[in-house]
Structures are given as structure tokens and as C-alpha cells.
């Protein structure tokens, strides 16, 4: 079932916290994964796989490079949930 932006953001923030230890409150829509949150490509892949599990979507490897901001990821998940 499709979730709201806020629900996806909250879930994603939990996943980021588990992988990096970052405060979930710091995971805001306009933050860049690399520049603002300092998440490297391998941690990003861990977040992607855990997001697939949590939200029941598929995020292909080719798509991961397009997920530059938290909003990109939230929008992709919302769209994939359809």
C-alpha cells in the first residue's frame, strides 16, 4: 500500500540511522546523501537494500546513482509503491 511522503521519510531516516548512526531528525528531504549526510557509495547501497525490504520496492543498481537527495529517494519509493 502506498505510504505518504512523511511516512517514507520517517522510515528512510530510521534506515539511515541504523547504517550511519546519524540522528534521524537530520535526514531531511533536501539533504544530499553524499554532500550533507556524508554517506559513501557502499553505505548508500546498504540503505538501498534495506529500503527495498522495508518499503517492498525494487531499486535497480542503475537507479541508485540518480538518488542524490533524500527527496529523490522518497519520491522514487513513493512512485514504485504506486
Amino acid at each position, binding site marked *: 500500500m502506498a505510504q505518504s511522503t512523511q511516512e517514507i521519510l520517517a522510515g528512510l531516516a530510521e534506515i539511515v540511522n541504523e547504517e550511519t548512526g546519524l540522528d534521524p531528525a537530520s535526514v531531511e528531504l533536501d539533504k544530499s546523501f553524499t554532500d550533507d549526510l556524508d554517506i559513501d*557509495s557502499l553505505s548508500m547501497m546498504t540503505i538501498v537494500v534495506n529500503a527495498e525490504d522495508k518499503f517492498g520496492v525494487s531499486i535497480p543498481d542503475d537507479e541508485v546513482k540518480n538518488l542524490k537527495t533524500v527527496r529523490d529517494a522518497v519520491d522514487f519509493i513513493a512512485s514504485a509503491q504506486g
Partner: protein
Amino acid sequence: MTTTATARPKGTGRISSNGSLRQARILGLGGYRPERLVPNSEIVDLIDSSDEWIRERSGIVTRRWAGAEETVEMMARAAGAQALANSGIDIGRIDTVIVATVSHPYQTPAVAPLVAHQLGADRAAAFDISAACAGYCHGISLAHDMVRGGTSEFVLVIGVEKLTDFTDKTDRSTAFLFADGAGAAVVGPSEEAGIGPTVWGSDGAQWDAIVQRDSWLDVRDKDLDWPAITMMGQTVFRWAVWGMAPIAQQAIDKAGITAADLDVFIPHQANLRIIDAMTKQLKLPDDVVVARDITDSGNTSAASIPLATLRLIEDGLAPSGGLALQIGFGAGLVYAAQVIQLP
């Protein structure tokens, strides 16, 4: 097609079996680490990086790069000789030499016959296999089956790489990872099973995830640069951690044991991040020692598992007779995993 005559077998002879299905185990290990230790500081300028970035990204602090004299056959011979000495098996009793490598710089012939000759196993069957970072575990599986099936009495398996000959020193995805070395094992008959069932396979849909940049024909015909090995880091990371952890678990299950029975876990030393994430996925008990030779040795492909095993033995962390889960995975993509009894 119309058949006008029916051929019938003579039926006068029967093929005799060449052996019984006896058990097999690893009898001894050997290794060779190149002389030159290369710290991150020697690498960072060419990839616009830092010691901290390399450590965070891979766990690697130093690695060993082979010099001009440390060729694939030289390192293979040294590791093989040590494995023979440690196993107590005379070279004259080795009837097969298998070399797993992707960096022997001749299209043909294989390096195995040369190594066999140099070691004194002149009549041994000798051939190379190409299974990249999974090559050693493929070799152990073949050797096990050969000993059990009676094709061979004693098999020398060698994993050897001089990856730096195929590394682009300016490639930020591989230059800090790849390294050189050799590891070897002697496999022979035993009373009890010392090598569990191998779980292996391939995923050719991801053939280009780790790949020599250009074919030899393109290098010749298009006057291209030397074709170094390149890698799609994120793709390989996902496959290695979430694809290979279930394979490792299958190897445990097929061996008829549980994770709690393991003494050590020796994954291919690809990247400390992969090793740690795979260990987490497997939910191994805390008392299972995990090989992390990568920090000092880098990624030596087919050599990494025997070298990491030797390091644990040298450090007193891998008890003789104990059980080790080993899993190789790499270019192809290909993989192989099995539980073995430590020599």
C-alpha cells in the same frame, strides 16, 4: 532423417571404476607474500584520495605488490612448495596440479604445467582454471571430487595472482584494492570427510560487473591502452553481501553443521566492508573468528582465502582440525563455498 541400419554395441567389455568414493581433506597449506609492502600513502596521489578514505572504504592499510622477479609462476611455485612441506606429501605423489589465476600473462599455455615441472611433478596432470576470486574454492571442489572419484591421489591446488599487472593505478575503484600473492593447498584422501559439499554457481547476466576493460583483439586492432580490470563497485557490493550470504549459509547447511559449529569464517578478502556486512547477514556467533587479512594484504583474488587461512593459523586463531567456512566470489560473476576441516 531415415535410419537404414541399427548399430548395436558389442557388449563385450565393461569400463572398470578407477577408485572408490573415499573421503578427502586438505592436508597442508602454503603461501607466498611479495616482498614489497605498499602503504596507502604510495597510492593516494594517483587516485586523488587519502589514507583515511581508503581505510574507511576498504579497511586496507597496506598491501603487497610483486616485483619484476616475483612472477605468477614464481609465486605459485613458492606457495606450492610450502603447501607440500606442510602436508608432508612428497612431490612425486602429486598427480594433479590445478592453478587458479586470472593474471598469468600468457593466453596459452597454462602456467600449471610449468609450475608442476618446476616443483618436480613432471608427470602430473596440470591445468589452469579461470574463476577469478572464486578460483581457489573452485579448485578445492575439483580436487575433492578428483580424490573421491579416484582420478587423483593427491592434488596440489594453487591460487595465484599478480593483479597489479592488470590494474590501472589511476582507477579509483580498484587501484587501492588489488594486490599480489599466492596460496596453495594439498588435497588428499582421508578417513573422514574433510571437505563439505561445494555450493557454487554463476550469474553471467552480470558478466561486465568486474571485467578486463577491452578484449585482446580490440587492444590489438584499435590500438587501445593496456586492458586493466575494472569493477562496478556498488553492484559488486550488493551482490557480494546480499547475494553471497545465503550461499555461505547453504554451504553450512549442506555440510550438516550449524554456524555454531564453525571455528573460523574465511570469506574472499575483497573489501573489509563486504566481509563485515556479510558476517552481519550470516548472524555468525561471536566466537567464530572472521578472517580480516585484507587490512594488511589487500585483495589478492584467487590467493586471498589460503593466505587469510594461513594468517589465522600463524596467529593461533584457526585450530588444526577445526571447521572453516570459506567462500570465494568474483568476476563472472562466479562463486563457490564449502566448509573445510583445517589442516
